[in-house]
């Protein structure tokens, strides 16, 4: 798997976790589970470390996409980009080939991740 793509997936998942940990709905569920969360700043620090490891141009694109769509990396399922549902080129249908390079959807521009 392409290293930058892997970092982008980790970054987006982490962003999702940061948002969720702060959300009222998740807090209610965690309370129901009897769980206590502390040290959320660790997530922010981990996020900053990931961001620093990305090339500036990629990070900038990531932030633009997050701002516009609320996500920047989308899975490819059944040969379709799950951001805009357009088909990706057939030669990229195999997961191992698709994830070998950093690719963006030709239509919506989101980073593509083959699951």
């Amino acid at each position, binding site marked *: *798997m392409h290293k930058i793509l*892997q970092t982008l*997936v*980790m970054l*987006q*998942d*982490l962003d*999702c*976790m940061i948002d*969720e*940990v702060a959300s009222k*709905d*998740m807090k209610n*569920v965690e309370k*129901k*589970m*009897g*769980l*206590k*969360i*502390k*040290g*959320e700043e*660790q*997530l922010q620090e*981990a996020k900053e470390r990931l961001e620093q490891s990305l090339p500036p141009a990629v990070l900038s694109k990531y932030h633009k996409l997050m701002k516009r769509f609320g*996500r920047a*990396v*989308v*899975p490819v*399922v059944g040969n379709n980009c799950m951001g805009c549902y357009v088909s990706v080129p057939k030669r990229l249908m195999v*997961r191992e080939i698709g*994830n070998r390079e950093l690719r963006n959807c030709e239509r919506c521009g989101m980073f593509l*991740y*083959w*699951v």
Partner: protein
Amino acid sequence: MKQSELQTYFSPDLFIPELKASTKDGVLKEMAAWLESRKKIFRTALVYDLLHKREALGSTGIGGGIAIPHCRTIAVEKLTVLCALKHGGVDFGAPDKKQVKVFFMVVAPPHDVTYLVFLGKLVEAVNDKLLKRGLFEVKSFEEFINLIAGEA
């Protein structure tokens, strides 16, 4: 989601009758690797890393010998639940200090709307004393699902 719908989220290939790992990290790694081996996720390391970060905020051991490690990731296509048992128990840092014997790993994609509801229903179910006692005795998926279905 009705309580009775819980059983529809479990399947024989997502059940580990006895974990090999005997540490908290080992359990998370073994369960994440199991998900990849069953083609539910791509890249064990991605999911393990996320679960590890979540555990750093506080154990997902809910007490009474049960833990529910959970996270959202785009590495999974749909809400996936893996149940695993460790009859000898593992120190999972649960608030009640009890060894954890039953693990439910819940992994969902970022925009799955059933994730929080499922977690809530799962907690309600496993907090039932009879079900909890039964879970510790379970040896196979058939026994497990019968227990869940019977109590649901």
